[in-house]
């Protein structure tokens, strides 16, 4: 090979090398842009969704932007794949040549995400729509609004169109947006058509064709979704195809971001507020504090996001209740109840022994329970402890659960069970009306367990001391001693004056019996309640404890002796709290 030839080859190779360096530079720039979120990743638009994307890029560009950033877009899952309808579907309509439906249900998502859908359907989340006839529902429908529309009683200046009041507005905007609506189509006769009318078969196809024929459609043949039920992404939504739930409750629609579902703000759409402030409780706990500090390092975009492998800086709601960890083989669950050992939702907390349907077993007979329980609370607790022990020793975790159990049992035994017994007795004795929330005592009891009692228990479960105590048990106690007991006595006294002597006496005796128990002995001890009332404590308790309690009850004055130092220190702590 001549020297000249070599020089030419070297020139060409040099250029090629230069090109390879330019390629490297391009890769680096792309990488840093992607990291900074400046450019989208690879997007693959399926042929049948191309028209949707082109048109909606003009009409609702945000939807397309969200979808473009999703894993769906990367994997070529387009609009039609999720919105596709069958010709039998009640809400299907022809939209520029494609038969689609507006509402995407778990049945649609389950076509690809089978396991996730099955786990979700077994969860309490999927049953969140069962709020009909619940206290919450009565509050919103009747107390806050009205079950039937009513006339406005004076004009609204500037709004001549307001000629009817929708009394269900609070339900539609409040309850249903978390619990889920019963999706409804408008009928030609002005009524609403829901899953109840359509009676879908197991494939989600309506069997009541008469109702299908009554569905009101617009000029383009599109069925009208009733505004009272849609838009709605409540987690227990009752869909027209018979499925329950809404995956977009957590995986926001169109971008379906796993990253977002992993963060506590996502759960905070519903799990906050006076009755179940889990989000605020979490934020107050050391877990939440660590998350706020370290969220940038938590690898939230990781494909699987396994605790112990992808991150271990701090847990989020998802970490403890749903996401995989190295001790469970990285298995994610879409049933957040799988790791709970107590349910703190009802007035009296119950252990999470669940039956074949995933429902909490309420049977009290131990032998009958054995036959009913399919998954024990101990198994569920073990699942949770698998998470805890990534960062805490087993003995630490066991001691935490001892504190938590003791707290829940104290709440149950001291306030919840007595309160529930008292309200039940007064209702059965007709000292309270059958209608809920029409008497002050019912509101008092509701506040006690539904707001303050839950706050206390959730505070204990997630290590937020201020919620366990000041926002919790302190308020439970104040509500119990200062409101529930006096109000119940007052009702009983009135009843006695009005001739309901037996009912009044039974109620007062129960109250005195409750207050005569050792744990209440400090209160009204000077009244010597034990002389004429039965303490009615739980017999199978340890004998020595019972003996000790009996002693305490026998000397109420001594037990109730106020401690001046304690009083002083209480004041100090008040001052500190105020600071």
């Amino acid at each position, binding site marked *: *090979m001549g*020297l000249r030839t*070599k*020089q030419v*080859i*070297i020139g060409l*190779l*040099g250029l*090629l*090398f230069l090109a*390879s*360096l330019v*390629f*490297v530079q391009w*890769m*680096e720039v792309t*990488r*840093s842009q992607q*990291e900074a979120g400046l450019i989208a990743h690879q997007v693959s638009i399926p042929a049948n969704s191309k028209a949707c994307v082109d048109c909606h890029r003009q009409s609702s560009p945000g939807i397309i932007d969200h979808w473009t950033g999703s894993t769906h877009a990367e994997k070529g899952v387009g609009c039609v794949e999720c919105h596709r309808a069958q010709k039998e579907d009640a809400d299907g309509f022809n939209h520029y040549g494609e038969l689609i439906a507006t509402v995407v249900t778990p049945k649609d998502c389950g076509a690809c995400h089978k396991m996730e859908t099955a786990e979700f359907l077994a969860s309490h989340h999927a049953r969140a729509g069962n709020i009909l006839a619940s206290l919450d529902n009565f509050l919103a429908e009747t107390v806050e609004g009205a079950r039937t529309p009513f006339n406005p009683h004076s004009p609204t200046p500037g709004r001549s169109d307001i000629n009817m009041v929708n009394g269900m507005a609070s339900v539609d905007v409040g309850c249903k947006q978390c619990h889920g609506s019963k999706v409804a189509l408008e009928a030609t006769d002005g009524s609403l058509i829901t899953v109840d009318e359509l009676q879908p078969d197991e494939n989600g196809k309506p069997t009541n064709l008469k109702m299908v024929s009554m569905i009101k459609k617009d000029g383009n043949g599109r069925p009208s979704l009733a505004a009272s039920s849609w838009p709605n992404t409540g987690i227990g939504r009752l869909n027209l195809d018979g499925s329950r739930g809404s995956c977009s409750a957590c995986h926001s629609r169109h971008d379906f971001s796993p990253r977002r579902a992993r963060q506590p703000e996502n759960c905070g759409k519903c799990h906050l507020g006076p009755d179940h402030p889990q989000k605020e409780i979490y934020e107050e706990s050391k877990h939440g504090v660590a998350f706020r500090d370290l969220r940038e390092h938590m690898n939230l975009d990781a494909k699987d996001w396994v605790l112990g*492998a992808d991150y271990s800086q701090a847990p989020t709601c998802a970490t403890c209740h749903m996401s995989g960890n190295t001790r469970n083989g990285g298995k994610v669950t879409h049933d957040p109840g799988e790791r709970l050992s107590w349910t703190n939702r009802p007035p009296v907390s119950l252990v999470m022994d669940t039956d074949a349907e995933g429902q909490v077993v309420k049977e009290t007979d131990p032998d009958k329970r054995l036959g009913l329980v399919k998954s024990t609370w101990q198994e569920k607790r073990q699942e949770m402890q698998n998470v805890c022990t990534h960062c805490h020793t087993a003995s630490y975790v066991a001691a935490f659960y001892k504190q938590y159990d003791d707290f829940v049992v104290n709440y149950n035994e001291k306030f919840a069970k007595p309160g529930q017994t008292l309200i039940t007795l007064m209702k059965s004795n007709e000292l309270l009306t059958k209608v809920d929330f029409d008497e002050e005592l019912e509101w008092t009891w509701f506040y006690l367990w539904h707001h303050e009692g839950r706050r206390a228990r959730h505070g204990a479960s997630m290590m937020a001391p201020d919620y366990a105590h000041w926002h919790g048990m302190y308020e439970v106690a104040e509500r119990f001693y200062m409101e529930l007991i006096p109000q119940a006595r007052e009702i009983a006294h009135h009843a006695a004056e009005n001739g309901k002597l037996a009912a009044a006496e039974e109620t007062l005796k129960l109250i005195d019996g409750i207050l005569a128990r050792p744990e209440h002995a400090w209160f009204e001890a000077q009244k010597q309640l034990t002389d004429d009332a039965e303490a009615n404590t739980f017999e199978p308790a340890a004998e020595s404890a019972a003996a000790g309690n009996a002693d305490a009850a026998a000397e109420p004055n001594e037990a109730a002796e106020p401690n001046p130092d304690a009083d002083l220190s209480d004041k100090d702590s008040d001052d500190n709290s105020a600071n």
Partner: protein
Amino acid sequence: MRGLGDWLYERMPINVAQLRELTNEPVPNHLKRWWFALGGTPAYLFVVQIITGILLAFYYQPAPATAYESVEYITNQAAFGWYLRSLHKWAATLMIAAVILHQMRVYFTGAYRRPRELNWVIGMALLCCTLLTGFTGYSLVFEQLSYWGATVAANISDAVPGIGGFAKQMLLGGDTYNERTLSRFYILHAAVLPTTIVLLVAVHILFIRLHGVTEFEFEDEPQDKPKHFNFFPDHMLTELMIGLVLMIVLSALATLLPATMGPKADPLTTPEVIKPEWFFYVSFRWLKLFSLTFAVISTGFIVAAMFLWPWIDAALRKLTGQQEISVYIGIVATFLLIGLTVWEAVVAH
């Protein structure tokens, strides 16, 4: 310009003509054939390793608490970090391959024979240094496999008769892998071994210059043609071409198959499958075939035999009268090398 030249010459009295004469070694004709011009490849790659290694060292932190995270930072965050780390990894792989191929070429052409025995020994030392650099470098990543690979290596060195315990102590800086082990590997990888390689390469080239390159004559070579050609510019351009091709291949490998990261080292969890880097597959398989003591002692004998091969070869030739006996042994050894490597590669345990 002339003034500047005079100024320089006054301070550095080096005669350019003499320097050219000194460096412009007559190159034997066989080096016009590509396969004989690959001896400079490891040197090229070594330079790449020095440059990328210095840049990586700007970020790397040799402590168990930070090592993995610093490599992660290089890979995922530092500008061009992924490219530099991938270049370093691929250049290491290619360098070891190139050293082995170069040694095989020297072996099968008998270029180690008298009077070049000492240069073979230096070459063997270079091979050992290169393998050790590869091993220590892999350990620095502090991922599960590299951690456990190093632990296994330490346990193997423990089995060497006589000096076992001491060798292990020297390697790990203690009885077990501890917080001082990584800094030990780092100093070996980034200072001691590269300096040794540079010195050995200098002596290697000095010997080549003193003895000249072994000359081969091919039958199709015209007899009337001069037997040598100039180093400048002819051979220099050939080397430049090879270097450029190498850089392009390296860049392509780094971009298309960039270096990844395994899980972080966890001293409490032994991985189900422990594998060293590919260039130790052969010795790893050998270890699994025999008892640890036999495998370690036999490996020691094999390495010693390789070092002393020029003299063993001379003795064998004298003894058997077979001039090509080393070629037959070499073929068997090569098959053994490839066979054991492939075997280790395809099985899990």
